[in-house]
């Protein structure tokens, strides 16, 4: 083993034991890495959960056009979708805004009409139903989002009145179109505030009637086979679709929302990085103290033929080693805490506000977490570079010492 490495490890572990300064420096890095990993994981969890929700409610790809699309299987878009081996299922949809009234309480929710038989293969709506059943849904019934049902005071079996923009169109032609009566067949809650606040789901036929679309639709939700590259499939579809029809991935369709999540993630990552940076100061300070304490030994190494860069390497290696061990322990602790995050959150909730109050207030009982390899690699690389740089300052100082002056020092 080259002597700088030998001496570095001997100084870190004198007589086989771990020095106190080594422990303090390592714990600093460990805690920094743990916090970075946990915050990144939990932020990633929220982002991942929102992404899953979007996919669950829209599919991986959405086909839309400037004009209305033919909604039956003879349409050109249907044929293109059916020809793609990457697509498991595609379901047409029509969407818009309506006024809905129940017991003299009006609301203006977004409305989406689906071919439910086909939609079941694309969107797992059953998973999000709080009450009612999809089997009870027909062309004279609707499913309300939870907050909408609550604000209207509507329950399963109640009849709501739906006023569509088509009624104003008919009024212009001196025709009176009566509001459509629809039975509440179900109530859903996705866990996405925007969707849960004011959304009505209905059959495609009902939506086409409300908007006077005949058999046409606004677009298709597409579900891909597991493991398919969404971007590649979307690109292939865009090449095959007519120029005014576009296949958008779920990320593109929600680019603004995703960019906010990414921005938040990056900002938090940036802020958390300072914790690691501060922790690396403990390495710098402990190694600087070591250089000061060992000034005459450094002089001796020079007198015995040790080169300045070898002396520097000795201290640099110590910084890198402390960083590597701290990073390893930090990752282990971070993954352990992420693994048992719910136990910890529930324990803290029980000790403070109580489990029920906590779940009611935060509207979740399980803290989401999703760690991607890229983030972990970034944390490791960042931590190791910071630790090595932290070791460079004392290393540079040690290398700068002239043996004759170092030996003379008091």
């Amino acid at each position, binding site marked *: 083993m080259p*002597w700088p490495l*030998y*001496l570095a490890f*001997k*100084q870190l572990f*004198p*007589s086989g034991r771990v020095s106190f300064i080594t422990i303090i420096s390592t714990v600093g890095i460990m805690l920094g890495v743990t916090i970075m990993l946990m915050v990144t994981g939990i932020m990633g969890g929220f982002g991942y959960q929102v992404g899953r929700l979007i996919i669950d409610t829209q599919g991986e790809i959405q086909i839309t056009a400037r004009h209305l699309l033919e909604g039956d299987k003879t349409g050109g878009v249907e044929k293109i979708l059916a020809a793609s081996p990457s697509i498991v299922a595609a379901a047409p949809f029509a969407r818009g805004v309506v006024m809905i009234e129940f017991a003299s309480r009006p609301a203006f929710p977004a409305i989406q009409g689906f071919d439910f038989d086909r939609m079941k293969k694309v969107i797992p709506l059953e998973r999000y139903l709080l009450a009612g059943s999809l089997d009870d849904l027909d062309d004279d019934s609707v499913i309300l989002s939870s907050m909408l049902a609550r604000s209207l005071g509507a329950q399963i079996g109640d009849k709501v009145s739906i006023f569509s923009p088509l009624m104003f169109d008919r009024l212009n032609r001196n025709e009176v179109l009566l509001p459509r009566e629809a039975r509440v067949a179900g109530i859903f809650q996705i866990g996405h505030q925007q969707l849960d606040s004011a959304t009505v789901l209905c059959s495609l036929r009902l939506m086409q009637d409300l908007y006077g679309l005949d058999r046409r639709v606004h677009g298709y939700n597409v579900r891909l086979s597991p493991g398919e590259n969404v971007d590649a499939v979307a690109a292939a579809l865009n090449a095959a679709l007519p120029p005014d029809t576009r296949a958008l991935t779920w990320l593109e369709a929600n680019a603004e929302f995703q960019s906010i999540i990414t921005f938040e993630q990056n900002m938090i990552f940036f802020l958390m990085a300072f914790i690691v940076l501060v922790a690396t100061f403990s390495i710098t300070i402990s190694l600087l103290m070591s250089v000061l304490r060992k000034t*005459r*030994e450094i*002089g*001796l*190494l*020079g*007198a*015995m*033929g*040790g*080169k300045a860069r*070898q002396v520097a390497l000795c201290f640099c290696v110590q910084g890198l080693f402390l960083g590597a061990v701290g990073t390893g322990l930090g990752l282990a602790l971070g993954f352990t805490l992420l693994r048992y995050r719910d136990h910890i959150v529930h324990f803290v909730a029980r000790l403070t506000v109580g489990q029920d109050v906590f779940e009611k207030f935060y509207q979740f009982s399980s803290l989401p977490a999703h760690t991607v390899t890229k983030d972990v690699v970034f944390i490791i690389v960042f931590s190791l570079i910071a630790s090595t740089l932290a070791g460079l300052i004392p290393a540079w100082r040690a290398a700068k010492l*002239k*043996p*004759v002056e170092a*030996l*003379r020092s008091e």
Partner: protein
Amino acid sequence: MSDPGTVLRAAGLRKNYPSGDRTLEVLRGVDLAIGAGESVSVRGESGSGKSTLLNILAGLDRPDAGELWWDSEPANKLGLGELTARRGRFLGMVFQSYYLIPEIDAAANVLMAARILGGVGAGERDRAAALLKRVGLAERGHHLSSQLSGGERQRVAVARALMNRPAVILADEPTGNLDERTGDEVISLLLEVCAEERAALVLVTHNPTHAKKTGRQLNLIQGVMVGQN
């Protein structure tokens, strides 16, 4: 050029240090020649330039003027890297404060000299063990410096200085931190092992008794070498 048999030679060494507005002449043309296996003592009062001379002879400091040869090689013309590497092989040094590395044991301290020069194998381990035995510390090889007495630490330092079979040992007040009896023992040991190893010894000391034990005694008075040179 050096004479045959001369391992260390200095000619016209001068060294000045600024001291306020004045220039302090520490060495004023020192000439010195040390033969292979020879022992030489350099005495002088505090501030007479003994340590400065030793540092220059060791290549740790550069003279303002003069020449220095290690064997037949002009040491003051070597680059810093080469000088450092060459020093590790050519010279061994013993200091007043021992300068043992506290985190490693006595045997590892002795081996450190070989480790710095390139590596440690079975041969180096055997030599370190033999040297420790020779200085009377065969059973203390696994002791840290904190577990050794001052005299024992200095003996380890002597063994370390001899580890790479240097041509010259430079000893700077090696008994300065020791009591009289221990100091006498260390000096006797140093002279014996240097003679056995055929290493020349330059001993800087205040102690006239120790100086008399060397083959040649020199005095450094106000930067000028006086004595048999």
